[in-house]
C-alpha cells in the first residue's frame, strides 16, 4: 500500500500534516470568521455578514491611519537597515583585527526578544528619567522622542537598532560566498573601488539583497512589540499599526470577526506587492 505512494510524497507527508493542522485550517477558519460578526461576548448571535466587515473598514479612520503608519514604518525601517547593513557588512568583510568579537557584538541585537528592546528604549528615551534626553539636554536639545511628531520615527530607529544586524548577517554571508574571479579581473583592469562596488559587487549580490529585503519587510509588517511596550498606538493614532490594532480589536474588544477582516486586508496588500515584485524579478532574470 505504502509502496504505491510516489517517494516524494512519502517524504512530504509529515510536513503536509503539520502544515494543514497549524496553518491551513486556522487560515480557512480565519477567512470564514472575517465574513461573520463573531464577537466572543455574543457568540450566540454570530451570523454571516458577507463583506460587511471589509466595507466597514473603509470608513474606519483609525484603521486607515494604521495602514499608512505600517507602510511608512516598513519603508523607512527597511531602507535604513539595508543601507546601514550593506555598509557594515562591507566593513566587516575586510576587517582583520578582532574579527569574531566585532561580529558577535554587532549581531547581538537581533537575538534579543523585541519586547525587551522596546522596554529598554522606552526608558532610555523617556523624557523624565531617560539618559539619552538628559545627555542631549546638556547640549541644549529638548527632544520628546515619543511625542506626536517623532513617535513613529523613534519606532523606526528602534527597529533599525534591532534588525540591521539581520541585514548584516545575510549580506555578509552573501559577500563571503561570492566568486573571487570577477574581483580579480576588476583589479587587473585597474577599476576603482567605487566602480568595483557598483558594477561587480552590487550586481552579484543582488539576489541576496532581494531575499534580505523581502524577509525583513515581511517581518517589519508584523511590528507589535515596540508599540505594545512604548506607546500603545499613541499619542493619538501616531503609532497605531495593523498588528497592534488587530490585537486591540480582537483581544481587547472581543470583535474577532472584525479583527480577522483587518488582518486579511493587510495580507491582500502585502501579497500583491510581493507578487508584483516577483514578476518583475523573474522578467529581469530571463
Amino acid at each position: 500500500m505504502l509502496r504505491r505512494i510516489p517517494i516524494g510524497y512519502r517524504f512530504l507527508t509529515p510536513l503536509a500534516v503539520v502544515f494543514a493542522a497549524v496553518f491551513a485550517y486556522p487560515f480557512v477558519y480565519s477567512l470564514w470568521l472575517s465574513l461573520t460578526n463573531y464577537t466572543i461576548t455574543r457568540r450566540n448571535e454570530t451570523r454571516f455578514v458577507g463583506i460587511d466587515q471589509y466595507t466597514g473598514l473603509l470608513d474606519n479612520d483609525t484603521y486607515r491611519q494604521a495602514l499608512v503608519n505600517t507602510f511608512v514604518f516598513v519603508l523607512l525601517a527597511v531602507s535604513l537597515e539595508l543601507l546601514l547593513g550593506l555598509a557594515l557588512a562591507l566593513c566587516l568583510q575586510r576587517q582583520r583585527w578582532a574579527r569574531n568579537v566585532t561580529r558577535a557584538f554587532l549581531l547581538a541585537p537581533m537575538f534579543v526578544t523585541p519586547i525587551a528592546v522596546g522596554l529598554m528604549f522606552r526608558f532610555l528615551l523617556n523624557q523624565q528619567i531617560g539618559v539619552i534626553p538628559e545627555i542631549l539636554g546638556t547640549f541644549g536639545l529638548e527632544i520628546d522622542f515619543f511625542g506626536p511628531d517623532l513617535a513613529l520615527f523613534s519606532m523606526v530607529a528602534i527597529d533599525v537598532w534591532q534588525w540591521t544586524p539581520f541585514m548584516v548577517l545575510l549580506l555578509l554571508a552573501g559577500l563571503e560566498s561570492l566568486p573571487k574571479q570577477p574581483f580579480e579581473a576588476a583589479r587587473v583592469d585597474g577599476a576603482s573601488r567605487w566602480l568595483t562596488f557598483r558594477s561587480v559587487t552590487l550586481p552579484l549580490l543582488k539576489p541576496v539583497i532581494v531575499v534580505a529585503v523581502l524577509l525583513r519587510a515581511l517581518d517589519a509588517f508584523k511590528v507589535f512589540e515596540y508599540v505594545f511596550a512604548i506607546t500603545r498606538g499613541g499619542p493619538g493614532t501616531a503609532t497605531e499599526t495593523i498588528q497592534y490594532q488587530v490585537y486591540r480589536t480582537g483581544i481587547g474588544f472581543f470583535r474577532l470577526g472584525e479583527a480577522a477582516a483587518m488582518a486579511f486586508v493587510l495580507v491582500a496588500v502585502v501579497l500583491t506587492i510581493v507578487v508584483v515584485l516577483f514578476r518583475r524579478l523573474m522578467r529581469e532574470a530571463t
Partner: protein
Amino acid sequence: MSRPLRALFLVIAVVAVAFPFAWVVLISFKSRVDLNDPSSLSFTPTSANWSEVLHGGVLEAALRSVEVGLATVSVSLVAGTLGAYAISRFKAGGGPARFGILLAQLMPPAVLVVPLFILFFNWNLRDTIWAVIAAHLTFVLPVVTWFMIGFFDAVPRELEEQAMIDGYGRFGAFRRVVLPQVLPGLGAAAIFGFVLSWNDLFYALILAGGNAETLPVAISSYNTFRGVELGAMSAAILVSVVPVLIASFFVQKRLVRGISGGGLKY
C-alpha cells in the same frame, strides 16, 4: 572607504549596540532612590532588583520558553527537512507547495491568532504551552522548510545517485549521504527557528498570558507606568538577554557559514 574610516564606522556601530545594554546593566544594580538621577554613575550597587526578579517567576518563564522553543524546533526540523527534500528533489506538490511555504511566511500573526484563540478556547487548551507550541509552528516551520529547500537545491544530484548505486535505498541515501551535506545549514535553520520562537510575544501573550507565560510575556508584565519597577524590569530584561548573547557569541560564525552554504535562494 579607507581603512581608518572603516574602523571608525565599526567602532561607532559597536558603541551604539553596546550602550543600551551597558545602561540596562547599570540600572539593574541601582536602588529606587538612585534611579531618580538617570545619569549618575556614583551609587551604591544593590542586588535587590535581581533577587526580586529571580524569585518572581522569571526563571520558570525562561524554562518554559526553552521547552516551547525546543519542541517547536524539533517538530519543524523533522517535518521541514523531510518536506524540503521532497520539494527540492522530487518536485512534490509542485508550484503550490513552494507557494504555500512562501504564503505562510508572509502571513501576519494577526490572521492566525484569532482562529487559534477560538480553537484553543473551545478545546480548553488556552493557557498551556501546547497552544504556544502550535502557534509557534505556524512561523517556525515555514522558515525552516524554506531554508532547507535552498540547502537541498545546492546538493549535487550525482551524490545520491552514486549512493544508490552503492546499495543504499532512497531513505538510506537521504540519511547517510544527503543529510550530512546539509548539516551546517540544518544547524543554522535550527538556531534561527529557536530564536524566532524565543522572541515571540504576540502569540504567547494572547494564547497563554496567565499560567503558561513565556519569558517575553513575563518581561512585559514589568511594563507598568510606575517608574519604581524600572530596576526589576532591567534585571528581567537581562535574564532574557544574557543567555542568548552568550549563545550568539558561539554560533555567529556557524550562522554566517551555514547561510552562505545556499540558504539564500528565491
